């Protein structure tokens, strides 16, 4: 309500007016928040793979190997962003929809969508509304496969934040959905994916 707005703003000003001086905005260097590397890596891709595994995520850079994993998991029916389906050309034994059918939300066992970036220091996948063909496709199935261009792996969070642009919904996903609410015991796969995969391609 507009009257609440005015009341709040005048209460803030009344609270701050008597302050003899106000704290200046600290100027902090980006290096401050960059975490110590967990080892030595010859590429951002290698560091990303290491950190993703640390966060209980899975890293693939071969479509046939990934398809074998899906089949071994008994994960046959899934959704795929229509612009990515060509990656799976010639793969047998998987049933893939490129139109997300809301009535099959509990039947899809994997979802394949595009990642906008990856963060090497933490194994994080960055999803945006611009590049995600369908929010539920990236969220509802047990397995989410984020397809990431190797060139889009950035070293740290500040570099990923610089890429925000004006996208209305940006998600940093680091490993599978998890909880430790029951007696502090870690369980993966609560509401979101129980298996988080990054498929890194280089084109």
């Amino acid at each position, binding site marked *: *309500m*507009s009257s*609440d707005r005015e009341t*709040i*703003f005048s*209460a*803030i000003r*009344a*609270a*701050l007016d008597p*302050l003899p001086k*106000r*704290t*200046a*905005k*600290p100027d*902090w260097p980006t290096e*401050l*928040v960059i*975490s*110590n590397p967990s080892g030595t890596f010859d590429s951002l891709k290698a560091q990303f793979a290491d950190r993703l595994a*640390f*966060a209980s995520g899975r890293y693939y850079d071969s479509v046939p190997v990934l398809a074998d994993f899906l089949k071994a998991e008994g994960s046959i029916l899934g959704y795929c962003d229509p612009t990515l389906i060509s990656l799976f050309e010639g793969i047998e034994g998987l049933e893939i929809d490129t139109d*997300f059918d809301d009535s099959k*939300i509990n039947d899809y066992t994997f979802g394949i969508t595009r990642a906008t970036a990856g963060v090497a220091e*933490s194994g994080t996948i960055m999803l945006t*509304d*611009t590049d995600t063909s*369908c*929010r*539920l496709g990236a*969220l*509802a199935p047990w397995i989410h496969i984020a397809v990431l261009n190797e060139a889009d792996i950035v070293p740290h*969070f500040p570099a990923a*934040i610089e890429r*925000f642009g*004006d*996208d*209305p*919904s*940006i*998600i*940093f*996903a*680091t490993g599978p*959905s*998890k*909880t*430790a*609410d*029951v*007696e*502090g*015991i870690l*369980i993966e*796969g*609560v*509401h*979101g*994916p129980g298996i988080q995969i990054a498929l890194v391609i280089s084109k």
Partner: protein
Amino acid sequence: MKTKQQIDRTARDLDPEVHDSNFMGAKLKSERRYNTLFRDYDDPNKLREIAGNVKQHTLEHLDTYLEQAEESFKRNGAQVHYAIDDAAVNAQVLRIMNETGSQTMVKSKSMLTEEVHMLDYLEKNGKTVVETDLGEFILQIDGDHPSHIVTPIVHKNRRGIAKSFEREGLGDYNDDPETITRRARKHLRQKYIDAEVGLTGGNFVSAESGRIVLVTNEGNARFCMAANKIHIAVIGIEKLVPTDRDLGLFINLIGRSGTGQQVTVYNQFISGPKKDSQPHGPEQMHVIFVDNRRTEVLASDCREILRCIRCGACLNVCPIYRQSGGHAYRSVYPGPVGAVLSPLLAGNRFPELADLPKASSLCGACNEVCPVNIPIPDLLLRLRDKAKREGAKEAMKGTPNLGMWATLCSQPTMWKTALSMGHTMNYIPTEMIPHPSAKSWQGARKLPKFEGGEFRKWFKKRAK
């Protein structure tokens, strides 16, 4: 053990099983916090200090930043509302639900909605509200309240949860944590699909871009914004930070400080309704900025507490919280942060919670672990002083009368005489002193020989 303070009584009477859950949960998270922060940074204290200054700067320029945030959200296509108190925010949410023809809400975890009892209010007005965070969902079916701001059911064990699930018809008794989680996944999945409104809090807000940040592990806040058409974010006015770049500080600190994770699984940055090209997600975003006495705290000498990012590190490290558990604080915010914030947010009910600032040994651990470096022990002392000045009865209970001591200390002649008389203590059987606390103290210890009162004599001679 006889005790007069309410929090002591709760701790004394706590079920040993609940005590152990609280204690072990807190200890584990504290250790993980330490290990992760000191593995990942050479000097994590530097981050805490700077993050604290960023928040303090924002609070001290809050009028400017709040105005900027409002403009940013509007530019992004979100609608901005303000609510002065609990009644106002609840009415706003109900109005939005009614205007959009919405009956059912799924919500993710928000301490502010606990503060204003939103769930009860909406249900009384005929709406259906479903908590989707696993812990909060269990609290909702049990009619219980969180005892910790990050791990809300740390006081419960799997057997109790299994019984609740059986009672609610979610399956036969099964206390395996994985089965409990799968059953909740299945049950809540349908709730997301059925609901029209998704309600969230907001951990941070960037004023520059008009982005709220939601930090979760389960992915429930993502679902609240994928399956529904209306998104309502209820946010305290103290959550602002100046820029997107500053968020880099806070997302690196909150997970490591709270649960000892290098980073929380999902960090969502939401600035408006979904893109037109996106088939799922909210077509409307409503941001409600809530005061609910935060401007009173801003005007007080305890304004630093508004820096708090609700990570829970101070609870986990606190020797009092570890013994008493969160419910002992009789308010929404427990632990050291709650001992400061709860009495302040209580307004004219301050005297009822004025004992909370005394629930501390002032050991300083809460300040040392705080990711925004809040001087909690100093604030506790300021509130003890306030309680004394206002004659709050709750705060005085169990405190020995120090009137005699105060007189003695303020009269040099009396002080000197008392010191010289101290030697007589060496000749009387002290265990005979008929004061109950003196007796109980000596039950386990022996009073050492008095050797004081010599310094002045020595100093006088030396000066000559």
